[in-house]
Structures are given as structure tokens and as C-alpha cells.
């Protein structure tokens, strides 16, 4: 998994490239301040420990979805060349979702090709939160869940809320 290696990568490159890290550090710090001052709904995020490049985010399953009532933890690790490269986001809480695989990896265009340096963690969390309400079964990471979502949404929602009760509470 890339999650454990990401912080070490960031810390090792801190010595390699001071300017990029310091600029990304400033950026991340500012994002943290803004996130604390104006947190998005049902979201919170912050550094895991004293490492600015490793965050933990918490998402609350929005009402009206099978994920309602669940608390989902995410690992966010910032590359040293953040924000020019997207952060790596991984669900540490298991979730029954066609766009999140069993390892917690997230298939979002925003985290890959359509990442923009202008995006912030706040916007990213809001985007992740939006997949709770609107899964994208046409770009699935777990095709079986996507198929079920398209063919039998009731069954899909039932299974999803089951997983929510089981893993996310």
C-alpha cells in the first residue's frame, strides 16, 4: 500500500528539495487554518500527528443515503510537490461503494487526471462526500457493486447500510 510509504517519501524529499516542500508546507498549513475556520458540512480533517503531510479526515454519511449514520475515516497524504500533484486519499473505514475498493482506494478523476493545484482539501472533501449521494457506477472500482447499483438499487442500498452499521459506527 502506498499509504505508509507516502509520509516517509515526503519527509525524505524534504531534505532533497527545500523550496518545494516549504512552499507546499505553507500551502498545507494555510489549508488547515482555513479548514478549521470554515469547515465544510459533515467533514473534518487535520494532521495526524506532527506531520503536516499526513492528515486524517472524517466524513459523516449524509442523510438520505445508505451511508447515513456512518463515520468514515480517510487517510490523506500530501506529496512533497503538493499542490502540483494531488494528495493520496484512502478510506480507512470499509464502505460498500462502487468507487471505493476493499483497500479503501478511491477512484476519482479529481484525484488523478483532473487534479488542479487550485483545488484544496476542502473542495476535495466535498467532492468525496458527494460520491456518497451520487456514486458513479460507470467508472467503478468495484464492478460488482456498480452493476448491482444499476440493476437493483434497493438491494445495493440495503447492503450498503448493512456495511455502514457494521464498519462505520
Amino acid at each position: 500500500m502506498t499509504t505508509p510509504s507516502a509520509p516517509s517519501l515526503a519527509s525524505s524529499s524534504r531534505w532533497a528539495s527545500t523550496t518545494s516542500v516549504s512552499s507546499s508546507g505553507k500551502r498545507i498549513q494555510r489549508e488547515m487554518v482555513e479548514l478549521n475556520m470554515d469547515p465544510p458540512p459533515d467533514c473534518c480533517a487535520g494532521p495526524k500527528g506532527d506531520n503536516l503531510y499526513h492528515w486524517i479526515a472524517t466524513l459523516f454519511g449524509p442523510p438520505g443515503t445508505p451511508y447515513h449514520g456512518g463515520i468514515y475515516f480517510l487517510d490523506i497524504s500530501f506529496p512533497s510537490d503538493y499542490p502540483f500533484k494531488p494528495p493520496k486519499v484512502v478510506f480507512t473505514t470499509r464502505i460498500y461503494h462502487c468507487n471505493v475498493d476493499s483497500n479503501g482506494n478511491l477512484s476519482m478523476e479529481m484525484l488523478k487526471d483532473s487534479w488542479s493545484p487550485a483545488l484544496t482539501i476542502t473542495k476535495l472533501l466535498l467532492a468525496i462526500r458527494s460520491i456518497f449521494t451520487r456514486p458513479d457506477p460507470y467508472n467503478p472500482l468495484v464492478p460488482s457493486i456498480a452493476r448491482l447499483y444499476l440493476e437493483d438499487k434497493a438491494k445495493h442500498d440495503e447492503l450498503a447500510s448493512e456495511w455502514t452499521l457494521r464498519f462505520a459506527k
Partner: protein
Amino acid sequence: MVSDSITRASAHAVPNTGGRDLGKKKRARSAKLKQCKLDVRREQWLSQGAMKNKDCKEEQNSVVKAGKERSNNRSFGNLEMRPRGGQIDGSIHHHHHHHDSDVESNSPNSLTSSVLESNYSETTFTSSSSSSSGGCCSGNITEDEEGGGDDGCLDDWEAVADALAADEKPKNTCPESPPEHEPIAQTVFPQETAIGSDQVENLNPPYSRVIPKASGNGHAWRPDDAFRPQSLPNLANQLSLPNSNRKHYSCGGVPWAYNGVVPSSCPICYEDLDFTDTSFLPCLCGFRLCLFCHNRIMEEDGRCPGCRKPYEHEPVEAETSVHGGSLTFRLPRSCSMITRS
């Protein structure tokens, strides 16, 4: 015309003055010739200038006349001093040191202007006075302050210059000026004429021969003369200001429309944007970022963070690749950079 012959005589005298064996007498004689020529030319200018300056007050005349006498003496004395100075620059400096004693603040401008104008000869007399920025103006101010301290004439020199340009044709038909108008233009021109003729014969002898001949034909300005006063205002604008104008219109206009949304800090790195950054508009979508971040993006992604479209042009490359096509070279610069010209 009278001036023609006189100028020719003085022009012919120029090579003589260059000789080593000639004494002060010869120089004094040429100086006198010059003074005569000055007076005649002055009359000409006055007759032209008088046409459009009838609004000048009569009461100036008495005061100004005194100034005329002074300036006459001064220019003559200056001419007399020149042989002692020995060099062209010396004469110019002498002239202006004279003014330095009177008005200190204006002297540097007038000095530089006269030195610059020395390349143009007498032709620049009117043209330079309206085209060149501050030099002649200060010169006139100096003269005004000396010749009675009348502020009304400060604006008149431009009118006189215009009148000279406008009345180029009527000048021939009109007789010599009425004497009461003489002092008005006198306050404006004597210094310039003194400088002009002085420099003409010292620095540019060919001009002194050509121009008076032309004036004798009724054309004070050669048709191919770039400083023809008739077209002078337009020409001066076209010649001297095209770059700055174009810069203002093309570069200053469009991008500053985004002024309202210019962030104070780079949205990418949160560093404060300096003036170069705020005037840097790499994408038409209006997304601004600092040059460092833009460079960084250009290295890898190459897409605008705002609209996710690839940057159509790469200002960094466009600036370095001089051999690029003129269109592809200019477009990025005019679109992306405001401050750079």
C-alpha cells in the same frame, strides 16, 4: 531673400572660422554676420508668429521689450564669447551658463535640449519646441521669467509654433510684421534662434545652407523633412509614441479588466503576489497565479489550474525563443504580460 544671402555668407564663412591662422577679427565679423542673420530671421519668425498672437496684451510690450534688449545683448555677447571658448560645446555651455545664473532649475533641461537639438539644426526650431518634451518649454520659461516674468506668454509659444506652421503660406504674401507684435514673439524665440543659428553654423553647415534657401522659396521646411511643422503634431505622435500607445491600448486595456478579481496572494502557494505576478495573466480564463507556480506547472502539467485547459501559449518559451514566428511570439506576450513591453 535677405536672410538667404546673409545665411549663405555666414555659411561660407564657416570654413574660414575653422582656420587656425584667422584672428579674432574674422571671428568677430562672423559673429556680427550671425547677429545680423539672427535679427533678420527673428523678424521673419515674428512676422509669422504675429499672425495668431494678437490676443497678447499690449502692455507686455514695454516690459518685454526690455527683455528683448537683454536677450539680444546676451545672445550677442554669447556669440562674442564663443571664439574665446574655442569649441562648439563651449559655446553651447556658455549660453546656458548664462541662463543658469538666472534660473537654475530649468537650466539642465534647456542644456540637454539644446545639445540634442543641435543635431537638427534650425529646422527643429519650431518642431522641437512642440515635439520635444520638456527642453524647449523650459527654455521658454526661462526666457519668460527673464523677460519680464509674464506668464501669459508661457502658453503663447505653442500658439506661435502653431501659427508658424499654419501660416507657412501666408508668410510670403504678408509684409513684415507690425512692430508692436515684435516683442511678443521676442519673448519666446530669441534664445532659440540664437541657439539654432549658433549650432547650425558650427555643427551643421549644410543645413544652414539648405534651409534658408527653402524658406526663400516659400517652403521653410523641406518636403521630406521629418520635422515639418504642418504635420508635426501627428507626426510627432506617430514617431515618438507608437510603442507606448500600443502598449497602453493592447496590454493595458484588456487584462486590467480582471482587476476586480486579482487575488492578493497566489492561490497555489499562498505567497503574496507582487506587481509582476498581479500583472501576469497566463490564461484567458482569468485565473492568476504567481510566476513560480506557473513555471512549475509549465514544467509538468501545463494546464491552467482554473479551467484545466492546457496553457495555449507558453510565455516563458515565447520569450526565450526569439526565432519564433512574429505572431506566435507577440501574441503570448501581449496577452500574458502587461508590464513587459
